[in-house]
């Protein structure tokens, strides 16, 4: 095996198993490839290696001392033991050291259930403390900034958060102070933890020392379920997990994707889940009064008829909505023949909107202004930047929106559609990557997926659009858009109950 290996790889033996890895890989990562997770606190694959927790010590043959596997680069012919008595005892003793001053207040700690320290204790140690002296007391509930609270007693001084601030956010806002037993995490002199990526420190914290003010004390980790999705906050399209319970989203955490966001995401994106429960349009309205779906669709078709006949109808796609919703409405506009198509706003899915419009031979206008000839408009989403509201009130405005705000408040007919976390769909990020979202929570009230609302509108206007599922819309869409030819509708990712997920961070 080693004879045939390329020169940029090395072959080593870990616990009797041979593995070939790229040069520069550390022993911890190599062992992980073999399914052997070596315990660690300070090591994070996305951060610089500091080897200060000593929780990942392993034996390397011909080396008299135990080596931290996070810092030990794999060498050709290296023989590593991770399960021998020497290194197993060393790791167990390091864990015991770490626990000396840890308060072990798991029942009231938000990290319980997804805590690395808790997991390692149950995996490796699981005996009472042998220390009979009192634990060192430090400050509880230290306010680090607008988003994060620190419990200095729970902190095990792994410095992941310091490095996350330094390397991900690029600002040195956290630091250690004092020495020995009294060493504490604190804000750097004159600083506050207020960078736009501050909540990543909560994710990387292996214990419950850093807690998000937004999520703190709301829900226990083991009660949540995780559904894989894509952040709808901007056009970067960070991969996320929506953590939800009982049909309600409770937090958003980043999901690793090497091509997009790696391990990280911004604070603003994390808080977008609040929007799912605010100002929602839960039922169809006609002239500001509640109406059923059937009546609203019928009235909409009647009122749009004259505008269609005279070529005075505009159709607005939306970057806040999914590819499938936009494609469905674009197809309807094309079937109607002469809709003036608008790309409504610069938002999460603008790249997808442009690709769809281009593929269907519709020209988009980036800046939204309503020509005086337009008498009616069908608009997706709740954002119509630059549009004159006074002018909008005069025309027949049919809104397909998830939220009742902005221009939607002036809609003659409002049709409720499901928001991003409530549908299975795809979105296209600014780099052109088409990514799949899964439905995490149910849509409120009578809201339907956007494409389904379009299908109903099409049927009322005698246009044949007969998709029965988002998958069928997706199939037609990928066939129609050249850049997306051959894309497959991935299997639905079912929610994962976090009580079975092990530790995070």
């Amino acid at each position, binding site marked *: 095996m080693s004879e045939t290996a390329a020169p940029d790889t090395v072959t080593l033996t870990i616990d009797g198993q041979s593995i070939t890895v790229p040069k520069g890989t550390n022993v911890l990562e190599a062992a992980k490839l073999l399914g052997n997770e070596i315990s660690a606190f300070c090591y994070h694959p996305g951060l610089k290696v500091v080897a200060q927790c000593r929780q990942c010590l392993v034996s390397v043959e011909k080396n008299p001392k135990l080596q931290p596997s996070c810092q030990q680069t794999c060498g050709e012919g290296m023989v590593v033991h991770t399960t021998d008595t020497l290194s197993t005892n060393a790791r167990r003793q390091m864990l015991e050291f770490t626990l000396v001053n840890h308060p072990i207040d798991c029942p009231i700690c938000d990290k319980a259930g997804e805590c690395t320290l808790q997991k390692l204790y149950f995996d490796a140690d699981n005996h009472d403390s042998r220390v009979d002296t009192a634990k060192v007391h430090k400050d509880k*509930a230290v306010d680090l900034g607008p988003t994060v609270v620190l419990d200095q007693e729970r902190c095990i001084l792994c410095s992941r958060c310091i490095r996350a601030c330094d390397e991900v956010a690029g600002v040195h806002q956290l630091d250690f102070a004092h020495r020995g037993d009294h060493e504490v995490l604190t804000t750097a002199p004159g600083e506050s933890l207020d960078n736009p990526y501050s909540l990543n420190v909560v994710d990387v914290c292996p214990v419950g020392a850093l807690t998000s003010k937004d999520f703190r004390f709301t829900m226990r980790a083991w009660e949540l379920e995780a559904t894989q999705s894509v952040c709808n906050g901007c056009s970067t399209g960070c991969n996320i997990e929506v953590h939800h319970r009982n049909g309600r989203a409770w937090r958003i955490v980043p999901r690793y994707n090497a091509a997009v966001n790696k391990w990280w995401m911004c604070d603003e994106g994390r808080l977008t889940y609040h929007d799912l429960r605010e100002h929602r349009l839960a039922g169809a309205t006609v002239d500001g009064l509640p109406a059923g779906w059937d009546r609203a669709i019928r009235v909409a078709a009647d009122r749009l008829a004259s505008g269609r006949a005279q070529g005075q109808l505009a159709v607005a796609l939306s970057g806040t909505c999914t590819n499938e919703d936009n494609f469905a409405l674009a197809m309807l506009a094309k079937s109607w023949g002469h809709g003036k198509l608008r790309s409504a706003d610069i938002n999460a899915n603008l790249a997808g909107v442009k690709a769809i419009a281009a593929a269907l031979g519709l020209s988009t206008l980036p800046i939204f202004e309503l020509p005086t000839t337009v008498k009616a408009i069908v608009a997706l989403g709740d954002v119509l930047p630059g549009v004159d509201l006074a002018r909008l009130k005069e025309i027949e405005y049919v809104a397909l929106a998830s939220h009742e705000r902005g221009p939607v408040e002036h809609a003659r007919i409002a049709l409720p559609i499901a928001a991003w976390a409530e549908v299975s769909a795809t979105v296209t990020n600014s780099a052109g990557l088409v990514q799949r979202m899964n439905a995490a929570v149910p849509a409120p009230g009578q809201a339907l997926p956007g494409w389904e609302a379009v299908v109903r509108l099409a049927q009322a206007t005698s246009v044949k659009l007969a998709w029965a599922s988002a998958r069928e819309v997706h199939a037609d869409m990928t066939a129609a858009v050249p850049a997306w030819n051959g894309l497959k509708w991935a299997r639905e990712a079912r929610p994962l109950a976090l009580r079975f997920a092990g530790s995070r961070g």
Partner: protein
Amino acid sequence: MSSHQEAAPSHDGPKVLAVSERSPRVRSIAVVRPGEPDVNYLAATAKGLAITLKHFARNFFLPMKSADERAKPGAPVDETWKNEIETVQYPEEKVTYPERFRGLHRLMLRDDGAVRCVACMCCPTACPAHCITIVPEESDSLRIEKRPAIFEIDELRCIACGLCVEACPCDAIRMDTGEHAKPVEDRARSIETKETMMARGIQSVATQGGEGPNWRETATPPSK
């Protein structure tokens, strides 16, 4: 010697007639029935009738004392009703339940009267009936970080299994009130709130965090 013969009982058991080849534990045995009819039941029948007659005569001829009379000072408390009638005048009087009877929940208190519960969510996690709802909040106390803003138990859903009490790490919830869940006119009224359960609670002597004396040994009976 085949295995099924080894499995057969050697002595004192019923007589084995046949043993299944496929499954040695399946056997046919000779069932012994009483040969002659046993006529001794006549004596037992007469004894039972005598007990019934005794109770009938006592209930028929002795005047029944009201609950008020029995509650008078000096009246024998425990044995009185036995002298008169075998019926308990529920709900005016109630039999005492066993010590480990699991009744209505109560929330225990700290020495300053605050709720002991730290909203750790162990009880709703353990609850098989999903009848416990806790909404945590940040406490304004320096000593305590987290506490329940809402703590509700739907007594209609509760199956009185006691797992919440077992799960509680800080003796915050008990079911030792000896009271039934009350009959209610609508379902919403069966929901016990934090306030109603705290009203039944007393100060707990357990050290928070599971250290100190075992509260089950030092517990005082619920105050009426």
